[in-house]
């Protein structure tokens, strides 16, 4: 007879009857793997110690991004009155027209020059974290920037509350400290909220060029998250990400979102930008084909096939911007677009080096 109810004693008894699960490997095999694994990890073990030491050193409250401006923004050469001609092949007749590119720049999803503060913010449905940038002039504290931008972030379908009342401080070695109060909403936000909070911190610090984060709750070292447990330090994993299209909520503007995963090569990243599905949309349309990708002294040359068909100017511009941001992830300084029987798309001219952007998704977003 099957049971449908259990009392507490029965539950305990069942748990005590859970079968023993043994490691099937031999002692020698484990030791061999251990000896093999010990060497490369030793270097990484220094990091927490360095962070601790750094925490005791002089911290500088950073209000603006550490990202330098892009002094050679070659895309500026693009003139607003430029136009692009849509390619006829495989394009519907009503789309086969000359589009004015002077509309496109206002829909740009990248900041091409200057300084920016970049916040990693979860979307309202807590599915992913989107980097949003605010161009800054002068030394404006980061929290003030966030406060000023909050209403706009809500309209975009992003949740800014995780970074409210959070202070970011940097030491000299790209090790950051994050201070928050014991009343911060993350402590009562459940496991998803904790995950979003940590991902927001990681993304924000990543854009500041940080390599690790040490947490403080009020004056006490570490944070005690009910589901995650006690955390003192997180290391910002090095990643080379692709950029996809993502609309945080129905009717919200489309933003560029980094891939959750890292890619070994930029070719693989581009492939995923065409194939991604689920909550993200491909940033490279399936009618666009990349013939080759070449690295030339820090410049990435992306050649499109002659039969590539570029859709409307806005989504094509976002495609180029997604490629530019992806190139930045792979440490390229500039990108040159060639082929595809196109002279330019939006402000981006073909056969010229275009400096990689400073940051993604600058506010205001249209």
């Amino acid at each position: 007879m099957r049971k449908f109810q259990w009392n507490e004693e029965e539950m305990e008894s069942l748990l005590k009857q859970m079968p023993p699960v043994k490691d099937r490997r031999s002692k020698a095999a484990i030791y061999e793997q251990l000896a093999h694994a010990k060497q490369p990890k030793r270097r990484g073990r220094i990091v927490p110690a360095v962070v601790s030491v750094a925490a005791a050193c002089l911290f500088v409250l950073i209000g603006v991004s550490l990202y330098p401006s892009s002094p050679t923004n070659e895309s500026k050469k693009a003139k607003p009155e430029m136009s692009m001609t849509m390619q006829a092949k495989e394009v519907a007749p009503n789309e086969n027209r000359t589009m004015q590119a002077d509309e496109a720049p206002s829909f740009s999803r990248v900041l091409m020059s200057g300084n920016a503060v970049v916040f990693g913010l979860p979307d309202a449905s807590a599915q992913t974290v989107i980097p949003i940038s605010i161009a800054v002039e002068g030394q404006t504290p980061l929290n003030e920037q966030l406060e000023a931008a909050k209403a706009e972030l809500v309209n975009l379908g992003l949740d800014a509350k995780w970074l409210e009342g959070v202070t970011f401080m940097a030491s000299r070695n790209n090790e950051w400290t994050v201070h928050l109060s014991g009343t911060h909403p993350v402590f009562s936000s459940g496991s998803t909220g904790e995950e979003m909070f940590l991902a927001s911190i990681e993304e924000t610090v990543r854009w500041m060029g940080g390599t690790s984060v040490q947490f403080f709750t009020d004056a006490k070292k570490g944070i005690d998250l009910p589901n995650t447990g006690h955390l003192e330090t997180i290391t910002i994993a090095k990643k080379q990400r692709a950029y996809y299209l993502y609309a945080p909520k129905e009717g919200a503007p489309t933003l560029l979102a980094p891939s959750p995963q890292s890619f070994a090569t930029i070719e693989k990243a581009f492939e995923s930008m065409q194939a991604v599905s689920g909550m993200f949309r491909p940033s490279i349309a399936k009618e666009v084909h990349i013939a080759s990708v070449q690295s030339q002294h820090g410049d990435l040359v992306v050649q499109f096939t002659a039969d590539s068909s570029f859709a409307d100017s806005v989504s094509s511009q976002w495609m180029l911007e997604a490629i530019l941001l992806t190139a930045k992830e792979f440490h390229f300084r500039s990108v040159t677009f060639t082929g595809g029987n196109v002279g330019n798309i939006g402000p981006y001219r073909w056969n010229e080096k275009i400096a990689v952007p400073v940051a993604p998704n600058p506010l205001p977003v249209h």
Partner: protein
Amino acid sequence: MDSVFDELYEKYHQDLFQFLFYMVRNREQAEDLVQEVYIKVLRSYDRFEGRSSEKTWLLSIAKHVAIDFFRKQRSFRAKLMNAWKVQDDKALLPEEIAVQREEIQLMYRCLGNCTIDQRLVVVLRFIQGLSVAETAETLGWTESKVKTTQHRALKRLKQQMEEAAKGGWHHEKIPME
């Protein structure tokens, strides 16, 4: 072979492995994590002051390794991957569990729905057989927190078991790993 490793292995290896296995519910992950525990233990063994028992000290290190694993698991990449693997997770049971009666299988599956803290307490208290005091020492908690978390864990497990039972769990055929 390192004599410290040799001794620790003989005394505690299967306990450590079992703790990690029931925490992460995956044999391969448990194998990787137990390696990490040894690496940490061997590096800090000289600093073990004997304030706690050797076993609770080792388990506390294993706890940190498991929590770190869960934190990494919660990265977005893992979240996406996990979303795709939901079906597999429901369908597959480790061999040791799959040969048990249905109640035990159900309990194993419901354990996966506990919070990490709840799972820590349940695994240490009932599967590892630690006392409340030893569990508190391992987790660095008060005994009162252990008791409260244990109570909540059992309540949650009971609720999950009963919901699953009413939902017709006994009709499912669960294949082995």
